[in-house]
């Protein structure tokens, strides 16, 4: 509890209100620029913002908790290593890390499929899963809420197609086989489903 005996605290918050943004108020672009210069405290904020999404996404794709943590670690270290190559003209930091995480996770699934399936199953069975905790970040939970609300506005086929492609890592052809729908229909549903999501979520 802070009280009148701690004047310094009041002073700091006073400073903040004058308009010096703290690191965790910086936008993604500024943060990643700092990370590119080797700033680990900026990377800490990036970690807080994106580690839950990266881990969650990888886990949804891979299922296996131990492998998911490994892949999430690889992705986060990659964000650190390649920070200087992030180009805001190509898209947001969120899109950059998400693409990276998804590709890595899918690569891992394909590698596992190519390896002896029994080994993979054995490795998965050996791991004692931690109980999964939904992210407690308010920002992420609000975003998740919005995503769920907007996914609810899609047709079943739109939603299935998008989820299979995004989380399942399936190509449009595979989605078409899985859902037994013509390829052209799947391509169209992926597009119009995403457009509806975009408009619902107000993505610029």
């Amino acid at each position, binding site marked *: 509890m802070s009280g009148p005996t701690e004047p310094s605290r009041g002073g700091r918050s006073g400073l903040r209100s004058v308009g010096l943004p703290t690191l965790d108020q910086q936008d993604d672009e500024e943060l990643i620029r700092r990370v590119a210069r080797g700033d*680990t405290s900026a990377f800490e904020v990036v970690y807080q913002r994106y580690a839950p*999404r990266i881990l969650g996404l990888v886990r949804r794709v891979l299922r296996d908790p131990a492998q998911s943590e490994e892949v999430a670690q690889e992705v986060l270290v990659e964000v650190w290593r390649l920070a200087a190559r992030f180009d805001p003209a190509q898209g947001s930091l969120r899109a950059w890390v998400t693409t990276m995480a998804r590709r890595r996770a899918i690569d891992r699934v394909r590698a596992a499929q190519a390896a002896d399936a029994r080994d993979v199953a054995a490795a998965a069975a050996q791991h004692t899963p931690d109980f999964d905790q939904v992210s407690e970040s308010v920002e992420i939970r609000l975003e998740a809420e919005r995503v769920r609300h907007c996914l609810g506005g899609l047709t079943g086929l739109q939603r299935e197609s998008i989820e299979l492609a995004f989380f399942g890592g399936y190509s449009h052809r595979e989605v078409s086989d899985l859902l037994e729908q013509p390829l052209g229909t799947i391509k169209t549903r992926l597009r119009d489903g995403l457009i509806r999501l975009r408009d619902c979520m107000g993505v610029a």
Partner: protein
Amino acid sequence: MVDEDHVMTGVYALDAVQDDLERRTVALHLAGCAHCREEARSLRETAAMLAADAALTPPASLHDRVFEQIARTPQEPPLPVIHPAVAELSLARNARHDSGRGTGRGAGRATRWVAAAAAVVILGGGGLAAYGVVQLDRARQAQDQASRLQSQTDRVLAILGDPAARRATVTATGGGTATLYTSGSQAVLLAAGLPRLPNGRAYQLWVVRPNQVVSAGLAPSTAAGGQAWNQLVTGVGRGDAVAISVEPSTGSAQPTTTPVAVLKA
């Protein structure tokens, strides 16, 4: 009406393409369609938000491992940014300089041309080694068609060295620049930074006249690999335009895609 290529923005945004070839084919379509490019971008941002729905609280051990690992992981430097226009300008300056002195002729001028290319390479940080000129120089040494290429080289140099040559430059759709120097009825097209093309595709040049479009030949095959190139274009009249489009590598009789660059001669 949404055509077959355009509908691929969703697939592309979700990275649900069949293979790398298809990814590049879609990218090529996007390169020629600003509206599709913008749509793909916004859909990719939308897809990225789906991850929020899956978010989990990472265990503290993950934080420790990541920070332990980054402490001993060096960071990559930014990719060198080479603006083709910079190189192209310096090249043009050199060419003009040559002609200004009035001594440029034959092999002497070609040597300086190659020297200019070398300067451009240094200026551009090494990424421009392919700036067309190198191919010109190599071409001169080729066994067959040597004399034809020699005379082409001379014509290219003559046009670039003509202080009265008209110059037009545009940013190509999909990136890169194309510059046209026109002198009389001949022109030289310099292209740098144009996107790589999938197998089986090539850049083709066209002379666009008021009521007809005539092929001016395929760009060198290295152009499809993303290298810079130059090409002599003949039979260019006042008011004509020179265009570049993406065609099957066997060439087309008439353009089959929207041009990536159109330059007034």
